């Protein structure tokens, strides 16, 4: 809308132009993030590869979940604040489907059905989607804010279901399966990276990577190979999600979703069965969240295990912050928001803490020791008004202030840029460019011909 946006808008004539610009934008933001991280890591001699692999992991994970949430909230206006619950359903379903069959049920080990991991991920997505459908059937009839209450309640209930002892382990056809109860489930199917590459008949690539790394890099080559391949898989997921949702958005289907977001009753008055659209979208979004949950917890969050304590609501709100930063209603914005949230607000304070610790160690002599506890940090302040130990203490524990920083950023955003980075942008929901076709002015609207005697074929009611 503003003048400064004019060049970008002028060139968004075709889908590909727009896509091109957006890819450049995403590329530029990612390049900046990686440059800062890599530069600082190299300068301070931190572990460079590990830092970048971690960064990629979180950027990818937040990007896909934010994309899925954008379908719910950004496009359709469905206020889903139970994201983590649907992610949990996905990963638990995958775990039950793909965990190896328990060989020794008597020992109390909980197994699964031993299906291939790729199939398990699909099952996880389907189960999460169907679960979303079950929630949506009653909840979508309610007014919008009640959907929010239902979803957050469901995600909390799920957390308790996951730790429920009575379904921790049970027999299905002689196989001991279950959700593991309070102990959680071990995702003991092996290296996800290797399994997923094998599923794509690229197992050789994995072996080659491990062999190459073996000679050149210190440490466990398989772990590094896993990290790299996992990062690539995440990037593939981001691209896949982005393309799928972009295609959905740039279509008559996406147009109806936007109309539902804007005014459901008006959309209904134009003959759109809004309830059906909402059901479909809720189901698909939940399915995407389910798959994202599998990818998230199979490696990054759980270190090979899942446990009910990992599915706390703050994860949902992280995703919401990412969506708000990027701009609800824009898929490109969602990717950017996910990336920036992950790099700045999520990993940023941790990374900063690493950096500060290095830095403080170097300066240890002139500034004095870092206090070991809050009490030790406060004592000099009350004693002789020496705030240096308190500052040192704060700086050394800056990652504990992550939530505080997030809150401040959120408040600032709400005040100054509630539409996020790209939320202001016009992204036409249509499968074609909406420029004026060349020939309309010559033809004219059918009704403009006087008396409407010759236009029975076009626009008039007489064509039925």
């Amino acid at each position: 809308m503003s003048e400064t946006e004019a060049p970008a808008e002028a060139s968004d004539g075709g889908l590909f132009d727009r896509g091109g610009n957006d890819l450049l934008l995403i590329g530029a933001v990612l390049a900046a993030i990686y440059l800062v991280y890599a530069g600082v890591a190299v300068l301070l001699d931190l572990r460079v590869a590990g830092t970048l692999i971690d960064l990629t992991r979180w950027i990818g994970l937040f990007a896909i979940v934010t994309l899925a949430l954008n379908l719910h909230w950004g496009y359709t206006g469905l206020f889903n604040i139970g994201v983590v619950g649907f992610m949990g359903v996905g990963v638990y379903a995958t775990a039950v489907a793909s965990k190896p069959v328990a060989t020794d049920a008597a020992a109390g080990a909980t197994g699964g059905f031993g299906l291939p991991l790729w199939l398990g991920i699909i099952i996880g997505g389907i189960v999460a989607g169907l679960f979303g459908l079950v929630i949506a059937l009653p909840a979508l009839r309610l007014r919008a804010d009640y959907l929010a209450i239902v979803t957050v309640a469901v995600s909390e209930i799920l957390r308790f279901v996951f730790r429920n002892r009575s379904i921790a382990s049970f027999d299905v056809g002689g196989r001991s399966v279950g959700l593991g109860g309070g102990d959680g489930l071990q995702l003991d199917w092996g290296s996800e990276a290797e399994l997923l590459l094998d599923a794509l008949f690229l197992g050789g690539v994995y072996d080659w990577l491990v062999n190459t790394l073996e000679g050149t890099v210190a440490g466990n080559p398989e772990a590094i190979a896993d990290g790299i391949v996992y990062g690539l898989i995440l990037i593939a997921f981001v691209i896949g999600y982005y393309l799928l949702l972009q295609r959905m958005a740039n279509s008559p289907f996406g147009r109806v979703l936007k109309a539902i977001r804007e005014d459901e009753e008006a959309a209904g008055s134009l003959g759109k069965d809004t309830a059906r659209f909402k059901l479909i979208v809720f189901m698909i979004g939940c399915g995407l969240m389910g798959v994202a949950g599998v990818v998230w917890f199979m490696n990054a969050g759980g270190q090979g295990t899942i446990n009910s304590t990992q599915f706390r609501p703050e994860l949902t709100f992280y995703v919401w912050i990412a969506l708000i930063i990027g701009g609800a209603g824009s898929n490109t914005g969602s990717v950017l928001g996910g990336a920036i949230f992950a790099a700045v607000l999520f990993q940023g304070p941790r990374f900063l803490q690493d950096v500060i610790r290095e830095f403080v160690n170097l300066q240890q002599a002139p500034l004095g020791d870092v206090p070991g506890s809050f009490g030790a940090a406060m004592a000099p302040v009350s004693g002789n008004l020496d705030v240096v130990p308190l500052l040192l203490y704060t700086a050394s524990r800056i990652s504990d202030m992550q939530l505080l920083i997030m809150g401040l950023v959120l408040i600032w955003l709400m005040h100054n840029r509630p539409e996020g980075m790209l939320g202001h942008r016009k992204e036409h929901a249509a499968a074609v460019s909406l420029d004026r076709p060349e020939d309309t002015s010559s033809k004219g609207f059918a009704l403009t011909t006087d008396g409407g005697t010759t236009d029975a074929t076009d626009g008039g009611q007489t064509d039925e």
Partner: protein
Amino acid sequence: MSDSDLNGSEVATDTPAEGDHADGEVETGADADAAAETDSRGLQAAGSETTDDGSNPPLQVEGLHKSFGGITAVDGTSFEVAAGSLTGLIGPNGAGKSTTFNCITGVHEPDSGLVRLKGEDITGLAPHDIADRGLVRTFQIAREFAEMTVLENMMLAPMHQRGETLWRSILPGTRDSVIEQEQEELERSWEALEFFEIDHLADEYAKNLSGGQRKLLELARALLTDPDVLLLDEPFAGVNPSLEERLLDHIHELSDSGYTFLIVEHDMDLIMQNCERIVVLHQGRVLTKGTPDEVRSDERVLEAYLGGEVES
């Protein structure tokens, strides 16, 4: 009292007058068939028949009842809207106009009575279902899709777009047909915007339009659904006089080209000057109906508007 609406002869007699406005060619074509088919309905129906396919007026309301708690809002309303006509539904405050309108469009389900669209019973169907069958409404306060551009607003309207089915929009093989249809919709949308002279606003967010422009947009949008009957809920409320003139011109032009309108309006003068048929509601019943002259000559109408007790 539904007796009053059986004075069909009144309605029938004024149809020739209506012919002045409605397009002659549609009428003459269907008239004979319709007259033959509708013997049982008598003169009244024959006069008003202009639809190609059926023997019924496009919209019929029969004995509509609706009460909220102890208050009866609509009490046996019956009327019909002739094809190609511009029919006004008027009445003083609390006469039941809005409730009647909402019962017709499916927002409320009537307690009893029938609503027929092209002879088909649509009573109690969901609003989107009713719109889907060809009865499309506009709102008293225009309801544009604020954060969508004017053109997107228009493109939404056409019914049964292929791409509204998700898999067709996504799958590579089927998306081409979606794009093809989008191209057609796009052309029609631009044409409609030009017709309503708001094409210069096409890429503007709908929320940036003035109140009157929103009314135009809403009417244009409703037209793109290819409706059989258009129900306009106080289309002139909050519209300045010059725009009102423009809106009226458009409505007359559309009416001349065969569209059927039912307009709910508060402003009696406006309806008197522009509608061919008028239905006057009072206390949930049809007080009288007929041509503007007939309605004007009915003393009860004035009394009702002045708040008097009226025998309907």
